[in-house]
């Protein structure tokens, strides 16, 4: 008989279930299959009702985040061979409300994303849509913010963040990293407009520097560093505004 691997998935259907349950599937083991391949196999062959998000299956769209044996991972780029012959447990991303099975509610994240004003803000508004020329930006200037542009909004960092787990109002790692990205783009002049949100009670100061967000980031964005640098920036700003008598 061909080798098999056991995958236990959290199931929850609000139409029929009062609480979460676990279901175990045995599937053929392939050492080059990702967890997403396994889920697609289960859905096509064993259980059409199993529900999860996925799309690009190349680790760039950010859809297929889930807890794999307790750690937030992308299902498409996490392989069965890392666990075999052991078993795999899949759960919805931690710290988010569950909609169904492995699908979680992202509305809170999407709203925070907008709050940080992630777009180029210019003092002179007519600059923003002027196509007569491009802004000049050197590679060195790009290096100041480029790493933070790599965030795919997969929200693994929120699932790993103990602060977000306890205080859902916390702005959170990916959104702060995005604010940092625009604040440090030489084309942008909107730092003051973002400061209120980033330096608020639920902003950077809530972070207790556990660093798990950076640990689980599949794109090495290092949100933790973005948060700490934003703290420094806000503190400096506070200090200088105090000196100038603005406070």
């Amino acid at each position: 008989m061909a080798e098999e691997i056991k995958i236990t998935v959290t199931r929850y259907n609000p139409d029929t279930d009062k609480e979460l349950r676990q279901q175990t599937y045995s599937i053929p083991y392939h050492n080059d299959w990702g967890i997403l391949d396994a889920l697609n196999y289960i859905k096509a062959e064993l259980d059409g009702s199993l529900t999860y998000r996925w799309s690009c299956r190349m680790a760039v769209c950010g859809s297929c985040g889930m807890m794999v044996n307790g750690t937030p991972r992308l299902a498409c780029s996490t392989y069965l061979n890392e666990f075999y012959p052991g078993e795999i447990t899949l759960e919805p991303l931690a710290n988010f409300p569950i909609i169904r099975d492995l699908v979680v509610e992202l509305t809170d994240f999407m709203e925070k994303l907008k709050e940080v004003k992630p777009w180029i803000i210019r003092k002179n508004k007519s600059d923003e849509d002027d196509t007569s020329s491009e802004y000049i930006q050197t590679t060195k200037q790009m290096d100041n913010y480029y790493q933070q542009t790599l965030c795919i909004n997969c929200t693994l960092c929120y699932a790993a963040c103990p602060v977000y787990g306890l205080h859902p109002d916390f702005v959170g790692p990916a959104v702060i990293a995005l604010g940092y990205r625009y604040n440090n783009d030489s084309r942008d002049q909107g730092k003051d407009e973002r400061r209120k949100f980033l330096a608020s009670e639920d902003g950077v100061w809530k972070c207790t520097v556990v660093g798990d967000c950076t640990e689980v980031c599949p794109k090495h964005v290092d949100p933790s560093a973005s948060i700490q640098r934003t703290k420094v920036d806000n503190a400096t700003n506070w200090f200088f505004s105090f000196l100038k008598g603005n406070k």
Partner: protein
Amino acid sequence: MDILTHDILIVGGGGAGLRAGIEISRVNPSLKTAVISKVYPMRSHTVAAEGGSAAVLKADDSHDLHAYDTIKGSDFLADQDAVEVFVRDATNEVRQIERWGCPWNREEDGTIAARWFGGMSRKRTLHAADKTGFHLLHALFQTSLKYDTLKRYDEWHVSALLVDNGKVGGVLALNTRTGVFSIIAAKAVILCTGGVGRMYAFTSNAGILTADGAAMTYRAGAPIKDMEFIQFHPSGLMRTGILITEASRGEGGYLFNKDGKRFMENYAPSKMELAPRDIVSRSIIEEILAGRGFQGTYGSYIHLDLRHLGEAKIMDKLPMVRELCLDFAGVDPVHEPIPIRPTMHYTMGGIHCDKDGKTPITGLYAAGEAGCVSIHGANRLGSNSLTELLVFGARAGRAAVEYVSTAKPASNDRLQSLAKERMDFIQKRYMKAGNGKEKIGAILTDLRKTMDEKVGIYRTEEGLKDGIQLIQRLKERFNKISLTQQSRVFNTELIQAMELDNMLEIAHVIALCAQVRKESRGGHARKDYPTRNDEQFLHHSLTYMSKDGPRRETLPVTITKWQPEERKY
């Protein structure tokens, strides 16, 4: 049924849809505009585009040169007036996206950098490393957030266009989250639903590309154009079909067969690896057919070799290629060649529309890969599609703004009765649980096998006839499907059923148009008719739905100043 009302509704939140949405919100913020998307917009397939976006920015380049390269690349099937508009608008559009924050790679002086791409006679492919689509989509999505007037319906699935007397009045859409269908009324609808790739087994396309826009337009009575032209990208990563960008050849990568020979010298000696995609893809298949491919668990392949570029250049210009190879094939291109073969990549055809995205249905527009203007003709040059979604997304947006300034909305009663018809159809066709024998997964697997084998890179009369029969049989099997459940919340099985129905409809059109076109042109290669035949086939194909199956008509190609000539590289 609930009616949600807008002035303009954009279906699809990828590059074209967001570009259209921003344009409308910018030009006329008093309009009620919305973007509806199956996924969160930043998860759209534009995110996966890698290599770059073509536009004339440099002093040694010109719009005429970009136009000529595009038309020659298209094997002279592109409409030349449309191409001229495209290359002209392209320059402003790439500057615009720069001003909206796209982190383009830079020259030493801080201006936007360009790289070589297949079939382009100048360095004009602007790029953000090899994550250009990702950066472009995120720049558009994040910029779109600044417009409070642009409403979004995230994770809603559009099931049908509501068309009354040749005029669109809105759509019927499913809120995936609640499982409730609603009417979304709009005076204008812009379809930006992307391509059809998931009907093939070996494809670079994301799971969401299921021919939805083409199928719903076709069912609503409008024609779809040039569907026989499917682009196979030369370098799909073995097993998965994941795209390894053309930029890897643009930056100097080589293709080798198992004898260690750079075989492109036999097929396109002046361009080598930088010949257009149709030519490179066919050359790879020729090598494999001649027994000069490597053998692997998942079939034959050839090598894309980047080792001579060195780690520094690979990390600077092609970091995602390295990531993808490591994550999805266990190969490090710094030290090993990459196993690849051609992968289904892009649909040159699509919803028949003009330079402003206008379709034959009043108030209905299309843009991006979903539409067919046509600027790609029989073969798209790499890096023209990211530019296309900017240019034609913006143009469709502006055209819709103008149209709705005088257009009247459809009556709510009429929309209710159109929606009810469609709801009855959905109940009857998809939502029957447990009384059919056929599984969606099995039909989909068979469709993909049929498309790969019978409607792939090389086509023959016999194969296409077979393919058409097989697709017809799959359509019959679809009548006997059953879902395992009828749950409301996030019923992805119901969505899969609707998507499969769309793909079956459009697969039939692709196979039929390929059978009728007895010539080889661009991406359409007939073994039994190996040459281009301008006398009989220098025309577009338009296909309409009829009760006897797809009905095909032809449409002349617009030629302005570039006469068709033999295509040599």
